[in-house]
Every structure is written in structure tokens, then in C-alpha cells.
């Protein structure tokens, strides 16, 4: 077996975006805050807001699912699922889909989440542990605790019958979702995918992060969901698009390897993405790093980027505005890049590098190029 000959990957066209974040709904408010380096909503929300540990947060303010999809059949939908349905609807609407369009057999969903809804899990656990009879969990709520619940509901509410994936890869989850979309669409497993990642903040999740020491107290925890409609760019031919994902490369540098090897690993995957696409290091206009504020990892990520590019381009710190969104982080970084490009138009198409480094040893790099100005 010869080593991978690295053929050029078939690029993905991002045709539309939907975003629910601490900045608000959509790309525009995100772009406004990023341009001014301002934070999104910086207080906990919800019934458990008094139970949070003393640390920075970015939460989605005033989110009511009924405002978006009506009051029917939503009683049992959790917050993560609500974010997913709304961001997917936004993206599909922006892509030209109508709410009353019929079933779509060739559009699928790829959602990144590591745990599903922790709020739902805590609720069912409460039932199972504190009630007299341990089996008296609410059968209408139990399915919410299964990790693929949000992706299933996104498909139901948008009548998407194509492939349906729920992917977990720690900090890299959303980048892996894009990578999966690249490969699946390249193999013609679907015509179109709605791809992205979601995370739901709660007091229990905040306490979970708080104890690990992975993020300092001033590093905000965040939540939200960013979803993108994507198609194989070549099969799609012309038509308007926001951008193209040119490549998404990943690697694993696990526990038996020295921590420093992750910066080399990140440099390798960036190098592979550049090599496979023919993009030169000096063509990268913007970097959206993923390890913002992460103890130990932030410097490793920076070193990896410098090693691959020979310099550090302008950086876009999306997590300062929307918080650390873990499963959704890569999708939020892509949203941030699209939002800032939209906010500050340029005469020529720009290219950005989105990176991620996980405490588990996963590293990844995604190359994205702005669409030609029509």
C-alpha cells in the first residue's frame, strides 16, 4: 500500500447558514459583535441560572422555541434540540426552501454533539434517582437523553429523509462533521447535507467544566448551534454560495505521545490541507483558532499554525464572543468567518483557516474560501 497520494478533495459549497448564539440569531449580529470584539449575552439564563459556578458565560438570551415553530408538539423538545431546529430552519430558508416543501429524500443532517442534551439527562436522572420507583422516568422525555435525539428531531421538523448522523469527537466534533460531509457528498451519499454542531449550557455542564481546570474562570462557557446547508460544489455547478470548504483534515495525537507532538500534528494536518488543495500559506487571510483560552492547548495551537504557515495571520477569536461551545466550536468558528467576511466586504475572495486542538489528542484544520463576488 502506498501512502495516501492526496488527491484534491471535492470541495463543498456552503449555500446558507443558520446560527443561534449568544450574539443572537443569524450571521449578522455575530458579525457585528466580532467586528467590535464585543461579547454576546454574558449572563446565565434559565431556571438553573442561580446555580452556576462563579465564571464567565455566554448564553443565548430569550430563546423561545414557540416563537419560531409554533406551540404545537414542542412540549417535550429540549433546549439543544430547539437550537438545532431553529438554526436548521434558518439555513434551509436562506437556501430557498419553503416550510411547506414536501419530504426531501436526498437532504440529510450531520450534527456534532458529544453528549446530547445534558439538561434532559439531568432531568431523567433526577426522576430515576429520587422517585420511589426508579423506573418512573417520563417516557416522553426519555428519548431526549439519547444522543441522536436532536438530529432525529431536526429531520422530523424539516422533513429531511436523507442520511442522518450524530458525531462526537470532543473539541473537534464540528470539524469532523464537515469532514464527514465532504466524504459523504463526494461519494454521492446525499445531494445536500445540513451540517454543524450544537451545545446547550446548563448549571450542571458549567460545574463540569469548572472542576476540570481546562479553562480559566475568565474564559466564557457558551452555547448555541450553527448549521450550514452544503452541497458538492462540482455537482452543483453554478449558483450562489457563501463559500467553499476546500478541505478538512484531521489527525490524532493521543496520550502516549508528548503534548508537544500535537503542535507538530496540527502543523501536519494544516500542511496536508494546503498541499491537497494547492492553497499557498501566504494566501491565508484569516485564522479562526479553536483552543482559545484552553490551558496548555492555546499555545500548542498557535505554534502549530506558525509552523505550517510561517507566520500568524490575523486571528478571529470567536469564543470570546460566543463562549466555548465545545461540540459546536468548529461550526461557530466557520460561522464567525462567514459573518466577519459579510460584515467587511473585500474586492477578492478571501481564504481562512479554521483550526481545533482537543485535550484528547484530536487536531484538525479546515480551509474555507469565500465565494467569488457576483
Amino acid at each position, binding site marked *: 500500500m502506498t501512502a495516501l497520494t492526496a488527491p484534491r478533495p471535492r470541495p463543498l459549497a456552503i449555500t446558507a447558514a443558520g446560527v443561534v448564539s449568544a450574539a443572537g440569531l443569524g450571521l449578522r449580529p455575530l458579525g457585528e459583535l466580532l467586528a467590535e470584539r464585543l461579547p454576546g449575552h454574558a449572563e446565565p439564563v434559565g431556571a438553573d441560572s442561580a446555580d452556576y459556578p462563579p465564571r464567565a458565560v455566554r448564553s443565548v438570551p430569550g430563546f423561545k422555541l414557540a416563537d419560531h415553530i409554533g406551540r404545537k408538539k414542542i412540549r417535550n423538545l429540549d433546549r439543544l434540540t430547539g437550537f438545532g431546529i431553529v438554526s436548521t430552519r434558518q439555513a434551509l430558508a436562506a437556501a430557498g426552501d419553503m416550510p411547506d416543501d414536501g419530504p426531501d429524500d436526498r437532504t440529510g443532517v450531520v450534527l456534532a454533539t458529544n453528549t446530547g442534551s445534558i439538561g434532559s439527562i439531568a432531568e431523567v436522572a433526577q426522576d430515576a434517582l429520587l422517585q420511589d420507583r426508579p423506573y418512573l422516568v417520563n417516557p416522553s422525555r426519555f428519548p431526549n437523553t439519547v444522543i441522536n435525539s436532536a438530529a432525529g428531531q431536526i429531520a422530523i421538523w424539516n422533513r429531511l429523509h436523507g442520511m442522518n448522523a450524530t458525531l*462526537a469527537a470532543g473539541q473537534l466534533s464540528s470539524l469532523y462533521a464537515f469532514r464527514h460531509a465532504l*466524504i459523504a457528498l463526494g461519494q454521492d451519499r446525499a445531494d445536500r447535507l445540513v451540517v454543524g454542531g450544537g451545545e446547550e449550557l446548563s448549571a450542571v455542564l458549567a460545574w463540569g467544566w469548572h472542576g476540570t481546570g481546562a479553562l480559566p474562570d475568565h474564559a466564557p462557557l457558551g452555547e448555541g448551534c450553527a448549521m450550514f446547508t452544503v452541497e458538492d460544489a462540482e455537482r452543483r455547478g453554478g449558483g450562489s454560495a457563501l463559500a467553499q470548504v476546500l478541505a478538512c483534515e*484531521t489527525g490524532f495525537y493521543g496520550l502516549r505521545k508528548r503534548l508537544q507532538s500535537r503542535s507538530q500534528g496540527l502543523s501536519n494536518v494544516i500542511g496536508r490541507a494546503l498541499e491537497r488543495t494547492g492553497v499557498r500559506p501566504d494566501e491565508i487571510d484569516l485564522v479562526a483558532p479553536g483552543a482559545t483560552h484552553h490551558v496548555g492547548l492555546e499555545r500548542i495551537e498557535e505554534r502549530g499554525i506558525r509552523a505550517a504557515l510561517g507566520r500568524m495571520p490575523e486571528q478571529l477569536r470567536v469564543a470570546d464572543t460566543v463562549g466555548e461551545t465545545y461540540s459546536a466550536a468548529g461550526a461557530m468558528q466557520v460561522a464567525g468567518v462567514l459573518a466577519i467576511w459579510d460584515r467587511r466586504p473585500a474586492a477578492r475572495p478571501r481564504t481562512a483557516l479554521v483550526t481545533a486542538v482537543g485535550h484528547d489528542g484530536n487536531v484538525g484544520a479546515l480551509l474555507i474560501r469565500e465565494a467569488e463576488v457576483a
Partner: protein
Amino acid sequence: MADPGPRRVVITGLGAVSGVGVGADAFAAAIRAGTVGTRPITGFDVSGFPYRMAGEVHDFDPAPILRNLDPADWGRSGLLAASAARLAAQDSGIDAGLLERRRVGAIMGTTSGESTVASRLAEQWVHSELKRLDPRLVGQAPAAQIASAVSNELLLSGDSQTVATACSASNYALGYAYDLVRTGEADLMFAGGADAVNRFTHAGFFALGALAEDVCRPFDADRAGILTGEGGAALLLEPLEHARARGARIYAEVLGYGVNCDARHMVHPDAASIAACMRAAHRSAAIDPADVDYICAHGTGTPTNDATEILAVREVFGEAPPPISSIKSMIGHTMGAASGFGAVICCKAIADGFLPPTANLQRLDPAFAGLDVVPGTGRAARPDIVQNHGFAFGGNNVITVFGRVS
């Protein structure tokens, strides 16, 4: 450079950690003999539960199997996955150094992720006033740790991805790994799945009315539901040329797969959608229904699943479908590992020449009259092409197709 076209992909290594045996040979021998491994639950306190049976891996000890992981650092699902993958690597006879040097990764499926870790965290949260959570457990909790466990155990540097598409997750993982290898994105891939029996899944299925009291009886007139189960299953996917060049034992070729989503209801399966998934799998594998010699059923043993599955099978195969059986009758519903165990037994069925049985059958449901569910014990046969069903919560259907390499 001319496009060489997609590579043919074969299965050259099998690993299983199951309630009826550890290692693919022990697992397959027990299944072939119709051994029922479901027993009273020992993994959590069942007092207060009316139904107390499950397919657990009793006395699971990963330490003698694993070379690189410290079991204390990982959750039960990750340890089941890593153990199965280590066994698959050994079974394949592949050079360990090659796994480390080449672009080799792991795609592992799961339903509930590190559910035993989540259970302990939930107990800390509910019972503690201080809202303190053990950071070691928090680090073990993400579902991603299942693939991470495999990558760390085998020192892999390629894709490390957990697929959490519930009870079809192993099949989804196999399909994705197949695409990674056939396109050359990866040199080799491990794929499979893992889940652990736990209090919340058991309670949830009971609350849904889907749990059986004593045994799981797929296709039986008196079937009452599932038994929860656990385990780890892993398969090594390798390019055919590479396998031949190193003289590897080839169990079967991955011919293709089909994937779709019901997008109608979270827990009720949909026959038309399952039939569409089967047709997609046949198109992907470039076969006709008449080519299929055996179907490894999803076969959960709930009244609804089995009726819906057979309806879909008849829609695609007509009134005389090939033999179809459910290994869940013996190991319970191992959730994210279920279609991984199905894939392992499909490969063994092709390589060793038998059809896996449906155990516990007393009286075939009259609605399934004429159906060959291979009751009791396995039967000698020579299946050339088999299909492996995986259906899930959220309407996630994935069907993989395996064929003999001649």
C-alpha cells in the same frame, strides 16, 4: 493522474466482547450453538425494578486484553470498544507498527456513550448539595472517548470519530469507514461500536413499555420486547489489494451500504422508509434482492419492530425472502454495538459457512408464516451475500451488505 476508481474494501479482522464470549471465535461459536447469554443484572442495583434481566458481559476484565490503556482512566463503553478493537487487530495478524505509522483510524458507534460514567455523575449531581462533579469522570463522559479509547489503545493517528446514531451506529460507522478506505482518505480503518448496560437506559426502555420480563423472543407470537444488552464489537477494514499482498485471511468484502432517516417519529419505525433503505443498500452494493442469501435482522423482539421489519422485508423481497434471524435473542439489544455484532456474525457466517439462529422461539408469529428465522441453533449453509440491519431511535436506518471474495 488517472482516477484509479474506488478501492475494494474487505474485512480482515474481527473483535467481539460479548455476553456469550470474548473474541470473535468464542462469540461466533456461542451464537452458532444458540447460547442465550441474558441473565439477572449485576451491573447496577436493580431493587425496585420489576424487570431485572439483561445481556451483560459478566466479569469483563479489560486488563489482560489491553496493552496501552489504563482501565482506571476510561469508562466501560470505551473499554469494551478498545478491547474489541485490540482483539480485531490481533485477529487480523496485521503488524502493530504499521497501524501506528499509516493513516489508520477508528470510527465507533454508540447509543448512550459513556452511560455508566454519566450515571455516576448524575448521582453526584442529584445527591450533592455542593454541585461538585469529579473532574476525572467529567473527562471520561463525552461519547468521543469511545473512539479515543480505540485510537489510544492501538496508537492510531487517523480519524478518531464516535458516531452516536443510536442503535444503528455500528453500521453507520462501518459505512463511513468503508468510504474512508475506498476513497483512499484512510489506509485502514477500525469500525464497530460499544455500549454498557446502565440504570437509565434500563429505566427508559421499561418506561416506554419496550422491555421483556424474562427472555427476548424475536419473531415469536408471544414476544414482549427487548432485553438491554452491552458489549463491544470491532472490524478491521482493509483494501483488498493490501490484504492479498500480505496474505491476510479475508472474511468478506464490504459491498456497500444504505442509509436514510424516517423523519416521522422518534421511536416508531417506518416500514416504507426501511424498505427504501434496503433498496439503497442494494443499489450501493450493485445487487438484486434475489442475490441476498441471509438477513441479519435488527430483530429487537418488540411487537412493533419485528412486524415493521418483516413488512419492509416482504415489500423488497416479496413473499419468499431469504432466511432472516436475530442474534438479539441471545445477547440482548446491545444498542450501539448491535449492528457491529451483526456485522461480525455476518462475516463469520460467510467465512465459516453457517446461518446464525434465532434463539428462544416457541411459536412463530402467524403473521410471519413461511418465514425461515433459523430457529434454535445455527445451520450449516454457504451464504455468499448477506445484509445486516440496523435501525434506531430517531429513525436512523443503516443497512450494510457483505459478500464472499472469490
